[in-house]
């Protein structure tokens, strides 16, 4: 492995205003470094945008545009169309990126349109499993039973009532040429997957589970650990899909039980020390077991 880069060599400059230990910022830096300087980014509204572009400063060393919360996909389509007319589309990478709220919920229709058009765009979703920027409200990526500010557990609530959407499978169903999931627990894997993605021409989707320190209620230094545990429990499958085949990152050894992961988050605290919670954890274990089976993670 290469030694640490001088922080000023990264394409996201130091000095952003994200929380210490943010899994998303770290992942975004890895993604962009892997894409290289000949990249144009369309970014959704969200933590990544807000913490890097306070006027008149910017952390971005590549051309970067933010329009709205729900449209980085269509903005990226426009960038690509313009590059085609300039004859630059073969040499420049178009990267669209947003959080899970942007990707799973409000921007969903526009992403579907972009994929349908089979455009050569890499879309990266930084999945914090919650609307981080507005204060940790539930999104379509929020896991079952998570405590968010709009799904508070109480006498009549166990937290989020829904099982999260599976965007990776939705991307595959759209015929994306490359689909992958990974986590901020595996920095080298993020780099490899971006590089691999860019060997394909056409619509590409990469989803990275990125720890939200305050949203999940974990300590500043835990982003990487949480990313690894999400994989090792089977809660978050790490895989690639291309040429009609899955390529899976196997869980090393026996999969861990989900409570090894859940117990570390404040957002799942209400599941511990009571009967109702025990039942809920069983259900979550069931989801993880199904993932392990479906994606052949063992």
């Amino acid at each position, binding site marked *: 492995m290469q030694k640490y880069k001088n922080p000023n060599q990264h394409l996201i400059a130091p000095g952003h205003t994200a929380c210490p230990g943010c899994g998303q910022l770290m992942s975004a830096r890895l993604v962009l470094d892997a894409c290289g*300087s*000949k*990249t*144009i980014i*369309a970014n959704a509204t969200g933590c990544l*945008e*807000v913490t890097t*572009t*306070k*006027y*008149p400063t*910017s952390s*971005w*060393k*590549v*051309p*970067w*545009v*933010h*329009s*709205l919360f*729900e*449209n980085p*996909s*269509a*903005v*990226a*389509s*426009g*960038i690509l*169309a*313009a*590059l*085609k*007319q*300039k004859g630059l589309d073969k040499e*420049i990478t178009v990267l669209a990126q947003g959080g899970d709220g942007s990707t799973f919920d409000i921007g969903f*229709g*526009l992403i*579907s*349109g972009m994929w*349908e*058009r089979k455009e050569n765009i890499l879309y990266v979703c930084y999945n914090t499993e919650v609307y981080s920027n507005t204060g940790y409200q539930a999104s379509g990526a929020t896991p079952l039973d998570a405590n968010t500010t709009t799904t508070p557990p109480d006498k009549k609530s166990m937290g989020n009532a829904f099982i999260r959407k599976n965007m990776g499978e939705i991307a595959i169903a759209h015929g994306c040429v490359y689909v992958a999931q990974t986590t901020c627990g595996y920095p080298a894997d993020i780099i490899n997957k971006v590089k691999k993605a860019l060997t394909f021409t056409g619509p590409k989707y990469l989803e990275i589970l990125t720890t939200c320190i305050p949203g999940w209620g974990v300590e500043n230094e835990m982003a990487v650990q949480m990313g690894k545990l999400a994989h090792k429990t089977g809660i978050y499958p790490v895989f690639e899909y291309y040429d009609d085949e899955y390529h899976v990152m196997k869980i090393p050894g026996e999969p861990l039980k989900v409570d090894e992961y859940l117990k570390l988050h404040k957002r799942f605290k209400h599941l511990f020390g009571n009967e109702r919670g025990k039942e809920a954890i069983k259900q979550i274990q069931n989801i993880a077991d199904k993932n392990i089976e479906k994606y052949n993670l063992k």
Partner: protein
Amino acid sequence: MILNKLEYRIKNTEYRIMKLDNSKQFLEGSHAVAEIIKLIKPAVVAAYPITPQTHIVEDLAKMKASGEGGFEYINTESEFAAASLLLGASATGVRTYTATCSQGLLLMTEVLFNIAGMRLPVVITCANRAVSAPINIWNDQQDAVTIRDAGWLMLYGETNQEIIDLHLLAYKLAETLRLPVMVNMDGFVLTHTYEPVLMPGQEQINKFLPPYKPAIGTYLDVKNPVTLGSLATPDSYMEIRKQLAQDIYLSSDLIKKYHTDFKKVFGRSIGDNGLVEEYKTKDAEVILVAMGSVCGTIKDAIDEMRERKQKVGLLKIISFRPFADEEVIKHLAKAKYIAVVDKSISLGSEGVLATEIKRAAYNQTKAKIQSFIVGLGGRDVTKEMIEQIIFDIKKDKTNKMHFISCTD
């Protein structure tokens, strides 16, 4: 034999480019727009269908398919996406185009504000149509006036010739000011009507509107990376918005200037100066104020009333944004009655243009100014209705808004 809609259109296309004489062509309004857009050469065209805009994007699709149009033509999954796509393309430094109206324009609203705030020279045509509910595909002007605060320059044409010409002016303004421009044409009344028009030649167009070359450092370019669309805190937001407001307000002068250039190159004008057109106002006791195709009907009504020695005139508003207060007041100040004719309404208030005229006229005239609503949802506006308005404004002792030709 009853033809289905598609057969009917195919049969009709052969008439669409019927030549009248050496210079004028007899074109459907939508086709005329598509033709001028082809000559303006946008790099990226985004499309999403909505009646009565459809013929414009269909004609552009045909031009793309035949190779006549060299632009990227992209079918999107919504108007929201179409506008976003143009935002991205424009931010990458190329000329862009789409057309929409009504529900489509409203769906775009968030993006429209964004495009203006980001100072991107996007140009769109709005084929003005009523807004739901009740759903109605016919013409009025509710759609565009509803987004008047978005930061777009908004131009209104009376005839298809004006619509052609306004598109040229629109791109010229957009690209110099780095501001978006919307050209408004009444749905069906203009979009689906055949009129003889002069289609300018490519050389003339290039002279007036050279290829778009944005300044380096203003667009997305890997050789000169910029950050566009950043977060502005209370420290800077207000100054940025003030600058936008001022630039739009001052654009009246630029419209006049480019209108002079336009006249030189094309040998005709768009109203008096690209901002307004006065018609028989000099000695008028009653002046009607209106925008769009209804001005044609009003002019005919005025001619007939003038024969009966009634002193009536019209002030046609071409530029609704910027609203050229001085130009407007100049023509209105001496009238006794000012009847503002709106094809839209700010619900809970009155006609949108009426409020605008009252604001501009504040302390500038003693005239009675009254709001008249006509033609909502495609109801025909006739010369008789115009005469009714003249009658009403003199007779009515109140200042209340009137709905013309509308049962209680």
